[in-house]
């Protein structure tokens, strides 16, 4: 499915090269036409529901942006108020069932989401070690990570 998305973008770039006007609007028009072509191609090659899949990717993007802003707001609050009320912890989180690219994407998104930072990966790739800022309750911190992992899996890798 991710290949179809790349095809969509490549077709849009081709459209911009062939169009007479070089503006963002022509790129958006190219994306729209490329989407039409790609969904026909997806149906013809037996990949159902390309539009819904694209919608899920965009939804994950919006969700990711919202938690990125939330993370920054948390840092801003912590930096502006005089007391440091953090309860940091390094916890392990199992990622054994994921593919390599999914692990990488998950680790990158964990680093950019509120209060979490990936420190290390175990040699066998079974666990990642996450530094959590607010982890008074270990189970709650793991649940937050799990929510992000589920959203990423549903949105991009399914």
């Amino acid at each position: 499915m991710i290949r179809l998305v790349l095809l969509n973008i490549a077709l849009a770039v081709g459209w911009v090269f062939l169009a007479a006007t070089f503006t963002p609007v022509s790129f958006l028009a190219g994306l729209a036409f490329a989407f039409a072509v790609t969904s026909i191609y997806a149906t013809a090659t037996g990949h159902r529901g390309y539009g819904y899949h694209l919608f899920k990717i965009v939804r994950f993007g919006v969700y990711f942006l919202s938690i990125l802003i939330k993370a920054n707001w948390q840092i801003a609050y912590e930096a502006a108020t005089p007391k440091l009320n953090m309860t940091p912890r390094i916890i392990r989180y199992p990622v054994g069932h994921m593919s390599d690219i999914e692990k990488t994407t998950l680790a990158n998104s964990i680093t950019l989401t509120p209060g979490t930072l990936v420190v290390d990966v175990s040699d066998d790739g079974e666990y990642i070690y996450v530094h959590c800022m607010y982890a008074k309750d270990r189970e709650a911190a793991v649940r937050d990570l799990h929510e992000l992992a589920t959203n990423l899996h549903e949105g991009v890798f399914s």
Partner: protein
Amino acid sequence: MNATHIHLVGDLLAAICLSFGLFFMVVGVIGLNRFPDAYGRLHATTKCVTLGLLGFLLAAIFHRLHLAIFTKAVMTIIFVFIANPVGSHMIAKAAHKAGYKLWDKTLSDELAEDRESGRLTQPPEPHLVDEATRAANPPAADVDDPISMKRAM
């Protein structure tokens, strides 16, 4: 709506994005100075610099509604969103391996537990320890050896 109006709206959006990005950059720098340990500082810098740069690049897009700038800004956003977490991950990993102390109020460190119990089989990397001692007392620059010259600088 003619071209002047579009540029007015674009400039307005650019100003909003620029102040948005600048706010988070400033917050990130304050956090870098205030947070107690290496990991806390990485929290501040990674998140805030990523979002701040996103604001700056969006401002660049809105300020000059031009495809050349649009594509460059979008590509920079994509690269920064990949490179910034990876960089901070490597710094955190190196800090933990070199044995930087966690903050006093840290509740638990399962990575150190696993390393001690032998669940992680990674051997300690000697060059990191060497680097720390070398920083403490730098060697005299050897003219024949370009690598040690680079280190001395």
